[in-house]
């Protein structure tokens, strides 16, 4: 059965990335911390999204 968790995780990570940007915009996160966390979350996103896409049958 197809595992939906990678897809859910990838969507959640994108939302977290957006939340991080909002926190930087409102001054609750420094630019340096934002850039570091954004990079980490981006890597997590690519791993989750790649897993999600690899489960799809080739068209």
């Amino acid at each position, binding site marked *: 059965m197809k595992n939906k968790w990678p897809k859910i995780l990838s969507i959640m990570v994108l939302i977290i*990335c957006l939340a991080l*940007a909002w926190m930087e*915009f409102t*001054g609750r996160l420094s630019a340096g911390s934002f850039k570091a966390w*954004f*990079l980490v979350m981006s890597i997590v*996103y690519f791993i989750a999204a790649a897993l999600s896409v*690899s489960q799809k049958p080739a068209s």
Partner: protein
Amino acid sequence: MAFDLSGIAARMDRLYEFDREPVTPDKFKKGVLFASIFAGEHVAATEFVIGAFFVLHGLKATDLIFGLLLGNLLAVLSWTFLCAPIAVSTRLTLYWYLRKIAGPGVTFIYNVANAFLYCILAGAMISVSATAVGLAFGLKVPGLNDILPTNALWVLVCLGLGFLFTLLAILGFEKLGRFAEVASPWIFLCFIAGALVTLPKLGVRPDFSNFWEVATSQIWNGIATAGQQQFNFWHVVFFAWFCNLAMHVGLSDMALFRYAKKWTYGLYSAFGMYTGHFLAWICSGVMVAAIGREMHPGKMAFEALGLAGAAAVMLAGWTTANPTLYRAGLALQTVTGWPRWKITLVAGLVTSVLSCFPLFFMKLLDYVAIYGLVLMPIGAVVFTEHWIFPKLGIPRYQAESKKQVFNWKVLLVWVGSLLFALILPVHLYFRWLPGYLFALAFYLVLNLGSRKSEERTRP
């Protein structure tokens, strides 16, 4: 003839054999797929450049917003009322439909023209990626008016990236195509996040209370950068409309819409237009304003998002250049008959060399206009043949019925309407529409004689 045209035509047919038959109802796709394809395709490396150029061309904020709303609407309507109905009615790709109308000789010329234009576009995308990779080496990006490469490092980075992209395109398009699927939502997020974190640098308060004031005074303030032409509302409307001219008015997206259940699926193109060609263009405008209006996509994303931003520009360039290289290789394969890897390598090498010339990247807006303009007359010919010929009793598909290699009328209309557009005393952006109407009328006039001769020969 110096080369064997029938051999080339046979090779072209073999190459496109898999989509020769009209799509059957069991292959129709859901609307959501069209929405996702459009949303993914229209968030690309070009968006980093186009939105930024709108700032450099001194647009006012209201002109930009209303211009983009209208121009993108016209683009969506072009997909819906021009491209999708013909695709749904024929269930064929433009390649096969044009072959019936214009003959294999014209489709061959169309393929070669398309491949050449694709190579230039891919070259511009490699240049965009080079601005991001070059950050690591302190690369000096060429200026807005530079035509030739300005330094050896720029050439080295462009060639290096070009070879890398070519190698990846040769190794496997399928898997890389899937990678693009993964990357596009993240690249779109990078546009939004990059613009959001850039706003405080421009003085926008966290409650957005002075956003409009900052937008109109520091971003789209109506003052063009030195050496850049002043744009207004109509430039934006026409640019947004013709940005994908070859796809909608030029009908190359028939390949996509032949899978649509009904022609109204053309409306799904709005998912690409109002994300990529509206939000992403606005976001890149915000980012370029924060780096002193310097045309440096790598720097503007890096300043906003750090390493992830530079990676976004690099990946956006790659995911755009990759399918473009693939398509160019596919089109050129028909001419040479060489294996895919060899022709992709040649196309990649040519593209890599082109990417060294900043002309294509720094004049991207003009290039996009020319790209659409060159292929637009073919869309006019197909539209006339499909919708107007039956109403006037003019026989359709004469090239097919008469087994013509070249339908000279189509070639004449193609060249004639381009010459007509060339001599029009208006801005480049406004030439395609009169050129399109001219092509429609010219093709119709050339074929009125066929109706009479058919009537005369009728018993």
